[in-house]
């Protein structure tokens, strides 16, 4: 049976890498006596994947992972079992049964919501960031240069096209940016890249601001062609 679990990653758990989380989940599943399905072949590994790896240092209340068990189980029981096996900072929010498709759910992701918190000593900085954000949203295109991992070549990327929504609110002691950006294997934007652009536009340095990034939700295209939160997938 294939399960999709929505989970959160908060506090110090933001420093735990993707690979380490994989191992943590595998061990948790094992500890709770849930028998996983393994891949065939020379070196079998459990059928499990985490959708759209989160950058190290980000928190999230909208993470997902999927895995296959040998036996059928009640998804709420699976959620409870796994939740009780997690360290502080990781919670299992919900669990649903997926139709056993070949494709991983992670591959269907198209968009993500993020919260970006910015804290600065100088309140003038907040105004500058607001202005930079307004400027950004008014542009038809904003390009940044990205070094290609394999070839080492520099490629121009239009990040404006990847930002679908950007709202700013002043909170007690920090500025909150709410973003909806392209996320997934087709088109992806790491909020840090946008942040860097805004910083540059506002003529601020990294040392001027303290930032926190949290992923809030991820979306996929439904059969009807609308974008729906991942937990609605069947």
């Amino acid at each position, binding site marked *: 049976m294939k399960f999709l679990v929505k989970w959160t990653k908060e*506090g*110090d*758990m933001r*420093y*735990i*890498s993707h690979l*380490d*989380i994989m*191992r*943590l989940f*595998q*061990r*948790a*599943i*094992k*500890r709770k006596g849930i*028998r996983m399905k393994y891949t065939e072949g020379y070196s079998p590994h459990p059928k499990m994947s985490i959708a759209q790896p989160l950058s*190290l*240092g980000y928190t999230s209340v909208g993470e997902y992972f999927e895995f296959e068990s040998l036996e059928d189980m009640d998804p709420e029981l699976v959620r409870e079992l796994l939740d009780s*096996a997690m*360290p*502080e*900072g990781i919670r299992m929010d919900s669990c649903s049964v997926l139709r056993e498709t070949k494709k991983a759910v992670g591959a269907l992701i198209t968009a993500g919501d993020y*919260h970006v*918190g910015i*804290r600065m000593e100088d309140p003038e900085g907040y105004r500058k960031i607001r202005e930079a954000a307004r400027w950004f949203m008014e542009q038809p295109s904003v390009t940044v240069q990205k070094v290609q991992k394999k070839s080492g070549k520099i490629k121009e990327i239009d990040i404006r096209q990847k930002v679908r929504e950007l709202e700013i609110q002043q*909170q007690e*002691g*920090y500025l*909150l940016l709410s973003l909806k950006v392209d996320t997934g294997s087709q088109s992806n934007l790491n909020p840090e890249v946008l942040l860097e652009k805004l910083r540059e536009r506002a003529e601020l340095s990294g040392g001027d601001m*303290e930032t*926190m990034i*949290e992923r809030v939700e991820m979306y996929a295209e439904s059969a009807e062609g609308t974008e729906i939160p991942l937990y609605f997938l069947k």
Partner: protein
Amino acid sequence: MFEYKTELEKKIARSVMKVEKPARYIGGELNAIRKPDDEVSMRVAFAFPDMYEIGMSNLGIQILYKVLNDIPDVQCERVYAPDVDFEAIMRDDDIPLYTLETKRAVQESDIFAISVGYEMLVTNVLNMIDLAGMEVYAKDRKETDPFIIMGGPCTYNPEPLAEFADAFSIGEGEEVWPEIMEKLREWKASGAPKIEFLKSLCEIEGMYVPGFYEFEYNEDGTIREIRKLYDKAPDHIEKRIIQDMDSAPFPTEPVVPFMSTVHDRAVVEIFRGCTRGCRFCQAGMIYRPVRERSMEKIREIVEEQLKATGYEELSILSLSTGDYSRVEDLVTDLMQLCRDNDVSMSLPSLRLDSFSFKVMDEIQGYKKSGLTFAVEAGSQRLRNVINKDITEEHIYSASRQAFELGWHSIKLYFMAGLPGETDEDLAGIADIARNIMNIYKEVNGKIGRLSIHVSVSNFVPKPHTPFQWFPQDTDEEFSRKHELVKNLIKPMKCVRLSYHDSQTSYLEGVLARGDRRMCKTLVEAVRLGCKFDGWREHFDYDKWMQAFENTRVDPDFYARRAWGYDEILPWDLIGTGVDKEFYLRENEKAHRGEITKDCREGCQMCGVNTVFIC
């Protein structure tokens, strides 16, 4: 979004993203123990002075973590050495050395315990005391600072660290730590000065308070006398052991790291000690007598550990698995248990007989890793000198069998610089490799996939062994010997040779037999920037030599001198249960090339049974 419980937690959070592997510094792992503050009346910060991934693999710490946290009002917290990148930030941002469980400064603990696993950690020990914001010399520390108590295998000669520790715990810690905590409880209630606690420790067997002893030296640098400064301090400190392995505490819910560590798996210790009596081996002497854990208890521990950790691998631990009295039953039983739980198994140091081939064939399947032989010396004569009970006939017949069963890879361990070693003995190393190569050719018709790995380590004479008086080879001599073996092995393309760094071995030799006069050298070495000396990328030999020169301590005096039988040795205060006369007899027998039998075949009168139950 930007809230932290304490100022220190905020500083840590801001820093760890700037360093490699932040998971080393945040704690919060599965099975880590954090008690509510109002239930805690005593805090112990327990350190292993190496990187997190090394320290987390240390079983001793996991055992004592359990022992201490089993006391309801004691919070034991872990501390490891920060890597150099994080250390630089800690020093810049005034982040003191802190514990992983509650992220409190180590200085706020009652006891700062440091387990010194091997000689090359000594600079880290000092560096960590400094990072904790304390003076390194015990005499300079404040009344409000925690007590620093050191232990671990390296403290069987505690003297190079004697001026830094308030006390040493000699031997196994399972029983002694609860006793220490009781003394601490009494002392805290009394409100007396720190010295009173140290005096009370003298009532506990196995506790050594170095400040209560003074060493005097002869003109030639040897020790003239060890004088007590507190009359109730013991004349001799006998190590502590646990006599019964079944009732001894053992972690069934070990802390499971997030990041991968050196030994990232379930582990059960099946016995302590070794009966073989190899004369070079310190572990074989200091862990006497042999004490086995029952099969039933082992199984119980494994079942609980797997349940509590979800580990995918199990390893069994001892000095020599094959010597467990019911090894076949045990291995068969555990293999079944592992199969039932989808857990793989690793079995170190099995004897290579038909049973172990069957077992290895089963657990390794078609992914056969290498076979390992600890041959140690290249000739039967020299193996007799060091009392290593392995014959070439055995190696060859086991190799043949392995090749017939489809193995292609063999690992051979040797030492260079052994007492009485000649160039012929070293040439014997290449001969053994060649003979194995020829056996492979006979079995497979060609060299094909064969890979032989010859590893040569440098012999370091250690305290509490029959070779404790022996002068170590110079690093030039080690290098010459490496070259000699290398040239003989070169024509064989299937043989790969690796050897240890000679300068590291030399320093290890100096530190192993050091005395109190070396304390100032350690301080100087740290001042010059030495740390992580066990890591090749950090070890700086020149700085160490500079430190010896600056403090006018001659390292050769410790490593390269033939020590006299009648000398007072720096570690003479410390007892392992084995008589000094036994070491002396064994050393004489080594000179004559006589072997001493495994003590399971009859008592060899080492003396340990006069102190402990054998």
